[in-house]
């Protein structure tokens, strides 16, 4: 039996900050910056939240929704570029916190913003080969931009967990293809708190090339065209890039309606495409075809040809919160409190 998505859950922290508030501090027109990026606000984690807690919350929701016994999880991978430890896996804490230990394999993935989609591919292989019953792929980040940097207007926090299995599949994965090159558009060196990037170089040769080439390669492989898809989800470092890449590939704004969440919560990095997919699945009925294309700097794209099944009509979404809740709710912070929450204030003695 073909491997696919059995359950999913998403989680976004409660706090928000607007580009206008960030711009106020740095003496630039943040409102215009937000409009240029198509980001209305971004999420901010509480001081007691990190990639481990967000991953755990999203996976607990997924396990409850799918009524999945955590002891049946054979593999658990967490994709992130903001793992709390440089050495000690996020995945072990998450596995323990959901009751999946000890009989499973677990590891942390890192590929800038696409570590979560890479984790899904790995789980598809293990489940498809019948080595395990369920595989868990999580994409979560609490990334930061340097104070005043353009990234600060969009870098946010959130994550989503997907359970991959062969039974009671709510969304089939027909095909996945990847497109990978050595492209130094965005990076963070060991020991550095904030990432560096190549400015405009992150656009054309990086995001746009990889996403379009990967999407086209997938559609060619399965013989599909944009009009075959009810929904499309792209990696969304801001609200503009996915709109532009969608237009280039021939998708309408209506097809992006549910897959585009960054305007309301910011760029959740490894969580971005996955939260978009979770929002699509929150709204989808049976028989709806979905194209998802992740992107990670450095650089690579993973594209997925997905289709919901009759099983999604019976899927119990009552546990946890739908993605729409996180798009509509939140508590806005001043830059001062945001700086305190994110450890940007020098407390002395360090």
């Amino acid at each position, binding site marked *: 039996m073909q491997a696919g998505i059995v359950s999913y859950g998403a989680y976004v922290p409660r706090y928000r900050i607007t580009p206008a508030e960030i711009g106020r501090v740095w003496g630039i027109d943040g409102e215009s910056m937000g409009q240029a990026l198509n980001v209305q606000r971004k999420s901010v984690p509480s001081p007691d939240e990190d990639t481990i807690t967000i991953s755990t919350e999203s996976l607990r929701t997924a396990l409850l929704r799918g009524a999945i016994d955590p002891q049946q999880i054979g593999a658990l991978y967490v994709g992130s570029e903001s793992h709390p430890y440089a050495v000690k896996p996020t995945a072990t804490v998450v596995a323990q916190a959901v009751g999946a230990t000890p009989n499973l394999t677990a590891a942390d993935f890192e590929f800038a913003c696409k570590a979560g989609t890479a984790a899904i591919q790995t789980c598809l292989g293990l489940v498809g080969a019948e080595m395990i019953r369920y595989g868990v792929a999580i994409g979560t980040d609490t990334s930061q931009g340097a104070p005043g940097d353009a990234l600060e207007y969009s870098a946010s926090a959130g994550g989503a967990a997907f359970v991959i299995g062969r039974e009671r599949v709510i969304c089939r994965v027909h095909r996945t293809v990847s497109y990978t090159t050595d492209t130094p558009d965005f990076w963070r060196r060991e020991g550095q708190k904030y990432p560096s990037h190549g400015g405009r170089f992150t656009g054309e040769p990086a995001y746009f090339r990889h996403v379009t080439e990967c999407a086209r390669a997938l559609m060619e492989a399965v013989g599909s065209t944009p009009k075959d898809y009810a929904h499309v989800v792209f990696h969304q470092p801001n609200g503009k890039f996915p709109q532009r890449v969608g237009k280039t590939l021939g998708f309408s704004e209506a097809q992006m309606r549910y897959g585009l969440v960054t305007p309301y919560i910011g760029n959740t990095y490894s969580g971005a495409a996955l939260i978009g997919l979770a929002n699509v699945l929150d709204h989808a009925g049976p028989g709806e075809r979905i194209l998802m294309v992740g992107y990670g700097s450095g650089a690579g794209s993973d594209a997925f040809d997905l289709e919901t099944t009759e099983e999604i009509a019976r899927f119990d979404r009552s546990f946890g919160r739908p993605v729409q809740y996180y798009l*509509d709710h939140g508590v806005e912070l001043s830059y001062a409190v945001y700086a305190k929450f994110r450890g940007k204030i020098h407390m002395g003695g360090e």
Partner: protein
Amino acid sequence: MSIARFWRETPRRYNLGGSKCTNCGTVYFPPRSVCPQCTHHRQSIEKMVRSQLSGEGEVLSYTVVHEPAEGFEMQVPYVLALVKTPEGPVLTGQVVDVRPGEVRIGLKVRATFRKLREEGKSGVIHYGYKFSPVEETNGGLPARGPPVPAPESLERPRSAAGA
């Protein structure tokens, strides 16, 4: 707290793992190896089983902390509450994602997984349960126009393969 001590407590801190006396039905958190209700008659011996709390509960009483414990300076003022669980035990825990003025006795809460404290900049990070309100108390944002068409205008083509 030593690494070993915290590690021993992870089942209860991560997953609210308690114990239950199968003789009288009382649930304990933290877990007990004998039941105080039944010990006099030694009836609980070998009758204590693991029992995981659901994580549901309601605020029995609470206090707002303005003078923080070490490691909680960034969260002041924060709420500590006694949470009555449907299984019976009353737990002490922080209530997060709520303004202190919005907490009230009887508030429905649910366990959430959070960072409890860090052993300095290079030490171990401790995780465990806190509580958050089941219903949002005051998190609505001003409505802003969506950048893309409303769902009514959606056309959802279905693939020929169907479901």
